[in-house]
């Protein structure tokens, strides 16, 4: 329902206006404004505690915002359960710790939401699941359980699981931070493929190589605010902001 409305509406994929978020008295997000166009690839970076994860978790209501407006694919995110469910159907999310369901096989992990939320027939859901497992290059692991896979494989399953819902937007919350170095590239490769397919992506990551390769825009956050945003080449070479330069020198310095 949302998809048909919003594709006609045409507006931005995500629009965040004056977003405020508090944890108790801690002001986690301070009047953040951000608009993400359809098909745009955004990379968000910044020191820990700067509000990056909080912001993208607000986009699918894993965190409830305290002020401002979030509009996803033309639907405003408010207390309306129908809106929340509708938005979650269209927004896939990948987590730092994969969060696969350990008691289900890889295939079941990928099929549970399409069959139950989208009411897809089983055969169709399985075909979709196998297609996406192929896409993330682990079709042979379909009948295994998450605990039997390596971290990189698990994260690729998590990406496939999100893609099986055929979302219009994908959120990545530090998808490679919990991985061993040699597994980071296998996950990043999948993300690059996804980007070249035209997926709208919002990625919280410190993989600056990835940002340089695929991002349309790099956003730097600090202290709950967006400090700077720019296309990657400008961001990495000609940053105007003192805090950004300091952060970059720490991330790129070694």
């Amino acid at each position, binding site marked *: 329902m949302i998809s048909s409305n919003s594709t006609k509406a045409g507006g931005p994929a995500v629009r965040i206006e004056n977003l405020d978020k508090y944890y108790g008295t801690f002001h986690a997000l301070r009047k953040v404004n951000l608009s993400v166009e359809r098909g745009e690839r955004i990379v968000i970076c910044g020191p820990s505690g700067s509000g990056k994860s909080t912001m993208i978790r607000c986009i699918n209501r894993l965190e409830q915002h305290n002020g401002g407006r979030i509009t996803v694919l033309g639907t405003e995110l408010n207390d309306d359960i129908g809106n929340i*469910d509708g938005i*979650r159907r269209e927004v896939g999310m990948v987590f730092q710790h994969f*969060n696969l*369901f350990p008691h289900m096989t890889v295939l079941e992990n990928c099929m*549970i*939401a399409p069959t139950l*939320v989208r009411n897809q027939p089983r055969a169709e859901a399985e075909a979709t699941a196998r297609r996406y497992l192929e896409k993330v290059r682990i079709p042979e692991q379909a009948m295994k359980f998450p*605990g039997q896979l390596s971290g990189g494989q698990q994260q690729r399953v998590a990406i496939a699981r999100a893609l099986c819902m055929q979302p219009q937007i994908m959120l990545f919350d530090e998808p490679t931070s919990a991985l061993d170095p040699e597994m980071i590239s296998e996950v990043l490769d999948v993300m690059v493929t996804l980007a070249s397919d035209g997926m709208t992506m919002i990625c919280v990551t410190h993989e600056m190589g990835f940002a340089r390769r695929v991002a349309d825009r790099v956003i730097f956050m600090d202290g709950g605010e967006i400090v700077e945003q720019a296309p990657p080449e400008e961001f990495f070479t000609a940053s105007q902001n003192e805090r950004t330069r300091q952060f970059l020198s720490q991330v790129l310095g070694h």
Partner: protein
Amino acid sequence: MVSLLRNQKVRNTLLQVVYVGSLAALVLAGIIIARRNLAEQGITSGFDFLYKSTGWDVNFSLLPATANDPYWWFFLIGIINTLFLGCTGLILATLVGTIVGLARTSANELAQLLGRTYVDIFRNIPLILQVFFWYALITHLPTPRAAHEAWGLLLTSRGLYVPAPNVGGVAMALATSAVIAAIALPVWLGRTSRLSQPFGQRATIQLAGAAAALACAAIILVVGRLPDAPLLDFPALQGLNLRGGLRVPPEFSALAIAIAIYGGSYIAEIVRGGFKSVGKGQMEAARSLGLSPWRVFTLVRLPLALRAMLPILANQYVWLMKATTMGIAVGFTDFFMIVALTINHSGQTLEVIGILMGGFLAINLSLAAVFNRINKAIALKGNQLRG
């Protein structure tokens, strides 16, 4: 010599030999002393007494029992009574524990407070006091003539009277197994269709299986009813006493309630711990996929919590099974009380204590074996990462 003693293997073997040797000596000495003392008192040891009739009666039995029946028959009655009380208590305790445990994990602060108060009170009062409390309460209920009635149930000082089905013994046994099948079938169907059926259809198949088994039970009951009698026999006052129906004696009710409430407070903590152990991440992932709160609970949170609870729950069940020995405090003829009576009447203390230990070992080892099987069957495969 010195070098041999410094050899690790030699030294370990030597220690083992000394340990096993002294243990054997201890047991042997015990047996010799016991035999000499028994001989001095003129008691013949052995198990011949098992075939003598007891000469006393039991106040509760699921099997026919008279004072002419032999001891071995009474032991069987005792074990069945213990199992019956234990199973009733365990099921009720699990129900109470689940409700209280869920209340403690809920977001509602009033429910949390009620749950915490419950656990604080009932976990800290000794079980025997609780047994006495419920027994006193039940035996102070009104006499049969002034009994309260609700839905055909009569609460009296002589026990709880419930309507009983007028059904033959064979049909009753068949219907009971059909009800057990109604519980077991969905579990089995869930396992066998795990990989071949999607989630929604799997639940339908399980429900259909359970419904079919229950329908079978109902048909067996209707067909197997005694001729010329209504299906249900309601208790009714006749003279000074109640006739008809089934009487649940106060001893049994008091023990079952006490075990349910005391055990429930422990199980509540196990349930709470189980739910707390489920990673927030898995539930967030389920929510972010658009699954409804109910499905997040039944498909992700509950299955993972159960896996964490089961080993501790097994431990608690074994413990509660042993708590049935409180029967002796209020005069319920459980296994332990029958053993105590037998010691008094036959004097075969050592043999009877041996039977008691063997009986409880058999019950609790079977219980543990069943739970180990379940645990193994549903164990999460591979290494787990805590999210």
